[in-house]
C-alpha cells in the first residue's frame, strides 16, 4: 500500500516517514510567516499534530506537501492573531535575517510598526508575496483563497502601508 494511503488510515509509521520528509519544508514555510525560529519549531510540531489528527480527512490522491502547507499557514495565522510580537525586527542577527545597514533603525522600526498594524490576513499575504516573493498561486493554495483574492490583499496591504508610512513621515 502507498505511503499516503497508509497515513490516511492512521498508521503511525507512515506518519513518521512523512514527518521526517516534510518537517524541514513546513518549518521553512512557518518561519517565513512568523519570522521567529524558535516559535516556528513549536508551530511545526503543532502543525503535524493537527495533520495527524486529521489523517482520515486526507485524500491520498492529493499533494501532502500542499495540504501540510495549508495547515501550517492556519497555525501560523493563529499565532499571529494571538500574539503581537511575531513580525518584529530581529534584534539578534544570528536568530533572524540580516538587515540592510542602509536603512536606519528608526526607519526600520517605523516600517515594522506600520506592518504590524496591518490586519493579520493582509500581513500573511504581504510577508509571503512582498518580502519572501513566493509565487501567487502557491500563496493562494496555502491560504485556501483565489488568485484574485491574493492580488487584492497584496494591493490593499501596499496601499495601507503606504498610508501608514506617509503619516509617519516616510515617503517611499
Amino acid at each position: 500500500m502507498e505511503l499516503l494511503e497508509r497515513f490516511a488510515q492512521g498508521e503511525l509509521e507512515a506518519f513518521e516517514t512523512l514527518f521526517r520528509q516534510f518537517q524541514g519544508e513546513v518549518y521553512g514555510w512557518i518561519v517565513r510567516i512568523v519570522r521567529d525560529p524558535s516559535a516556528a519549531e513549536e508551530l511545526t510540531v503543532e502543525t503535524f499534530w493537527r495533520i495527524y489528527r486529521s489523517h482520515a480527512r486526507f485524500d491520498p490522491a492529493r499533494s501532502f506537501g500542499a495540504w501540510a502547507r495549508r495547515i501550517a499557514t492556519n497555525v501560523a495565522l493563529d499565532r499571529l492573531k494571538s500574539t503581537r510580537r511575531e513580525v518584529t525586527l530581529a534584534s539578534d542577527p544570528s536568530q533572524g535575517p540580516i538587515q540592510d545597514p542602509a536603512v536606519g533603525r528608526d526607519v526600520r522600526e517605523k516600517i515594522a510598526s506600520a506592518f504590524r498594524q496591518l490586519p493579520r490576513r493582509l500581513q500573511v499575504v504581504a510577508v509571503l508575496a512582498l518580502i519572501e516573493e513566493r509565487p501567487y498561486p502557491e500563496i493562494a493554495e496555502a491560504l485556501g483563497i483565489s488568485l484574485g483574492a491574493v492580488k487584492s490583499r497584496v494591493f490593499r496591504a501596499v496601499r495601507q502601508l503606504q498610508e501608514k508610512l506617509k503619516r509617519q513621515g516616510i515617503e517611499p
Partner: protein
Amino acid sequence: MKKNNGQEIRELLKRAMPPVMNPELGRDLWPEMLHRLEARAPRVPWFDWALVAALLLWCLLFPKSIPVLLYHL
C-alpha cells in the same frame, strides 16, 4: 496607486525586514512530536477498568455462567 509606488514599498519592506534566506531546521523534531502523540494518547477511563474487574470477578464466582456470557458476546 501607481505601480512604481508599489515597487518602492516592496523594496522598502525588504530592506527593513529582509527575507528569510534558506531557512533550515537545525534539529529533528520527531522526538517532540512523539512525546506529544504519547501525551495525548487516549486513556482507558476508570469505569472501563472497573467493568473488566467486575466481569472477571463474576467469572471467578460463577464459572458456569461463562458459556452464557460468551453466547451474548
